[in-house]
């Protein structure tokens, strides 16, 4: 199908983009890579009256390290992040998860900012960012604020973004010594939407786990952290029994709805298996 008619605006700077967002209110939608928005428009699931195309806004796709944080511009393409040596050095978890994100032509266009603003529960990056305790930098014509990734995703396809706000950058604490992280996913085929995925980040000191983050994809909302599972892991040596107990907890605490390829019971099983695999791999990398 074809999209419904809309007005097209192409701002040349961030202030222009924010002005357009403020002017058009809820009628205006940001067009970044368009790899989620345009399919929804083609299927007429959404009919934005105004598209604000930020693809030519300069400086919005930079990747840099600032103090202890990896800072990624909202318009950075998935393909660029997957290939980035800076990302590989400071957030290898993101690179590992990106290998599961869609396919080449989609990654050439799709952006990290667009991905998280779309907030698909099956998506990898919300889980990665939640596990890393990333912060989402957002702006409106009135000013800027920072939202923890754990609070940014409020439900399936919904975020804490207010009218007139857009994501401008993502700030991720850089990986520290003693930390290990891993992404594990189950999908029907490579690059398909995940049935379930797990991001694990553990810190090991003196043979014991001093910090654990576990976040899941494919469950009730994007970027879902599992604090009960994390609590089970901290203080243990991350031996097989401790990991198995925490993984069993994961299947208890998630509340997935079923999809065509995976009913809730299967998704709970996946949450357990993938949590065990992700935490084990993260532990092995932390040493």
């Amino acid at each position, binding site marked *: 199908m074809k999209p419904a008619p809309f007005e*097209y605006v192409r701002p040349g700077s961030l202030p222009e983009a924010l002005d357009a967002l403020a002017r058009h209110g809820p009628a205006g939608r940001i067009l970044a890579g368009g790899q989620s928005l345009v399919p929804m428009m083609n299927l007429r699931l959404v009919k934005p009256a105004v598209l604000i195309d930020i693809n030519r806004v300069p400086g919005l796709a930079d990747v840099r390290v600032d103090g202890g944080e990896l800072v990624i511009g909202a318009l950075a393409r998935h393909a660029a992040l997957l290939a980035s040596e800076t990302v590989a050095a400071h957030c290898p978890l993101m690179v590992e998860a990106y290998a599961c994100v869609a*396919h080449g*032509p989609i990654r050439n266009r799709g952006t990290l900012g667009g991905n998280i603003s779309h907030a698909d529960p099956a998506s990898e990056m919300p889980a990665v960012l939640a596990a890393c305790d990333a912060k989402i930098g957002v702006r409106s014509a009135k000013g800027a604020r920072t939202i923890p990734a754990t609070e940014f995703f409020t439900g399936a396809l919904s975020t804490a973004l207010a009218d007139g706000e857009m994501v401008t950058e993502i700030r991720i604490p850089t990986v520290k010594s003693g930390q290990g992280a891993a992404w594990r996913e189950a999908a029907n085929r490579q690059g398909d939407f995940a049935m379930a995925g797990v991001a694990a980040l553990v810190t090991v000191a003196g043979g014991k786990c001093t910090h654990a983050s576990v976040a899941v994809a494919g469950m009730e909302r994007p970027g879902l952290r599992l604090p009960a599972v994390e609590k089970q892991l901290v203080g243990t040596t991350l031996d097989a029994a401790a990991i198995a107990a925490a993984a069993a907890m994961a299947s208890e605490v998630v509340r997935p709805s079923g999809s065509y390829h995976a009913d809730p019971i299967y998704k709970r099983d996946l949450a357990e298996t993938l949590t065990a695999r992700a935490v084990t791999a993260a532990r092995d990398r932390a040493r």
Partner: protein
Amino acid sequence: MALIPISLKVNGTRFERAVEPRRLLSDFLREDLDLKATHVGCEHGVCGACTVLVDGQAVRSCLSFAVQADGCELRTADGLARGGKLSALQQAFWEKHGLQCGFCTPGMLMVATELLERNARPTKAEIEEAISSNLCRCTGYYTIVESVQRAAELMQEGAK
């Protein structure tokens, strides 16, 4: 809705047109420029038949608006053959039976073009990864992988 003037190059030729903002790049190529090699399959980014190169990168033309391609250089399967002679990649698809019905072929050719420009000697796994973005309902993919391998050989020979 007001028409927006755009100017872009497709397969080396400059085109200037005025488009409705909602005009998909795939429809622009086929209907406005009459370049019919690009096929339209699913129109929501799943099948890959509409894949074209925009400034050297493979993209889904059904997930871009023509207005976004203003100022860009595009390549489509229409431009692969030169003077009635198949390109090495097309020749390889011919030799290795890389197509049956031909519907997915333009998209396959364009992802393979991007791959071979980036990586002149791809492994089988790299070819499989590159074409995994595109659906083929006839070949079972084996002959497409063989075609891309053969194209890499032909291009190596041609470069000597």
